[in-house]
């Protein structure tokens, strides 16, 4: 948020410090399975919580792959979901043509440098991606974002929290004015889950592509799969078609897994410089599935 001020991305007249609101930084088990994570829980505390590590390794791994240890001590899980794109044009220290910064000013990346931009769900208005690591894990987990508002709160599926640019390219997420994220609810434990992040340097860097896989297994057979990709679209990208075809597949049958993943890439569309991300994303999805399968159940 401070960086938005510095860059002129946000010019608020008031800032409200919500960090001391009571009761929003707790992690508690939900009756009937599942976990409720207060929105103000710091990232490191979520990732290193015993229940998160045991039951939701995909989330723990995603968080520990995000930012740096210092930043994870400051950042909250709720705040992380609200982060804006890392598109270099959007983040520039001077305002450049960008529909997210100034609606109607155009998208510099569309015909500019877009080697790390979207391969799914982009429009000519915006080809950026959502950079959050935890969001990808939450989408794969079918988590729910719980919000509060003076007119009542909402429960938003994590995979639908962020907005694609097809309606209002300047918006990042579905939150309304005055709406506050209060908690994230995770469904039943997903011990066979894993996160994979691809980046040129080993740490403290945003993903080129990330993949979250959540598996339910029956021996070597996949019973159900949740798959989401990060840094490929303006929202964590669920691979629904792949998930459907994965049900019943043998985890050792790489060809079958790849064929399933392929189903979700029919809708992939490269930009001028990022066709490589399509292959990379397919491979990352496959690796994430295999990594998840190796997790102890």
């Amino acid at each position, binding site marked *: 948020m401070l960086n938005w*001020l510095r860059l002129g991305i946000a010019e608020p007249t008031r800032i409200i410090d919500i960090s001391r609101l009571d009761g929003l930084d707790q992690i508690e088990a939900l009756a009937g399975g599942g976990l409720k994570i207060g929105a103000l829980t710091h990232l490191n505390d979520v990732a290193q919580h015993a229940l998160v590590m045991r039951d939701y390794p995909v989330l723990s791994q995603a968080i520990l792959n995000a930012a740096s240890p*210092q*930043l994870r001590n*400051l950042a909250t899980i709720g705040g992380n979901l609200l982060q804006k794109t890392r598109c270099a044009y959007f983040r520039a220290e001077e305002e450049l043509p960008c529909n997210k910064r100034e609606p109607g000013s155009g998208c510099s990346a569309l015909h500019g440098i877009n080697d790390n931009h979207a391969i799914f769900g982009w429009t000519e208005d915006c080809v950026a991606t959502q950079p959050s690591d935890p969001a990808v894990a939450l989408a794969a987990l079918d988590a729910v974002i719980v919000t509060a508002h003076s007119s009542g709160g909402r429960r938003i599926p994590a995979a639908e929290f962020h907005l694609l640019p097809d309606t209002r390219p300047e918006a990042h997420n579905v939150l309304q004015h005055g709406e506050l994220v209060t908690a994230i609810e995770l469904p039943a434990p997903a011990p066979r889950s894993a996160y994979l992040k691809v980046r040129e340097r*080993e740490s403290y860097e945003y993903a080129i592509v990330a993949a979250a896989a959540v598996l339910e297994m029956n021996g070597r057979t996949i019973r159900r799969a949740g798959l989401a990709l990060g840094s490929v679209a303006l929202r964590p990208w669920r691979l629904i078609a792949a998930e459907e075809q994965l049900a019943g597949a043998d985890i050792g049958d790489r060809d079958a897994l790849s064929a399933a993943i392929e189903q979700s890439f029919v809708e992939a569309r490269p930009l001028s410089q990022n066709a490589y991300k399509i292959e990379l994303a397919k491979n990352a999805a496959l690796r994430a599935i295999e990594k998840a399968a190796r997790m102890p159940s």
Partner: protein
Amino acid sequence: MNFHDRHLLRLRVNGEDHSLSDLDPRVTLLDLLRERLQLTGTKKGCNFGECGACTVHLDGQRVNACMILAVSAEGREVTTIEGLANGNALHPVQQAFIDHDGFQCGFCTPGQVMSAAALIEEGHTSSDAEIREWMSGNLCRCSAYPQIVEAVRAAAGRASQ
């Protein structure tokens, strides 16, 4: 909060209570330390949370001081590099950085040392790989990275793996 309001801020820095009046709400904890309290050991390398040179401890946890508005540190306890040693006796991490040549130009060093001291408290020292990962929030362009890992390992009291 209006940007032209002025705030009163109380916080504890290196064991000393400070009460600052007339504080511009835009002042970051980093600039407060450097410009108001003359604690210039904490460095400004990027001012965007991208380098770790400004790492301090806030209520015992390592954080980037450039990413915190000073007013939000009301009532908190801050430890900077100037407050890490016990009088003349260096903190074990400081001594280890000297012993293992864990720096060159020294500009990122206060942040590295503060990060390392916290890392050891956090217990992220089970392997060199873990140290490397948990020290990756502090860039060092002289690239003293291997020596930093040696220093952290030594300060944590571990033998070489």
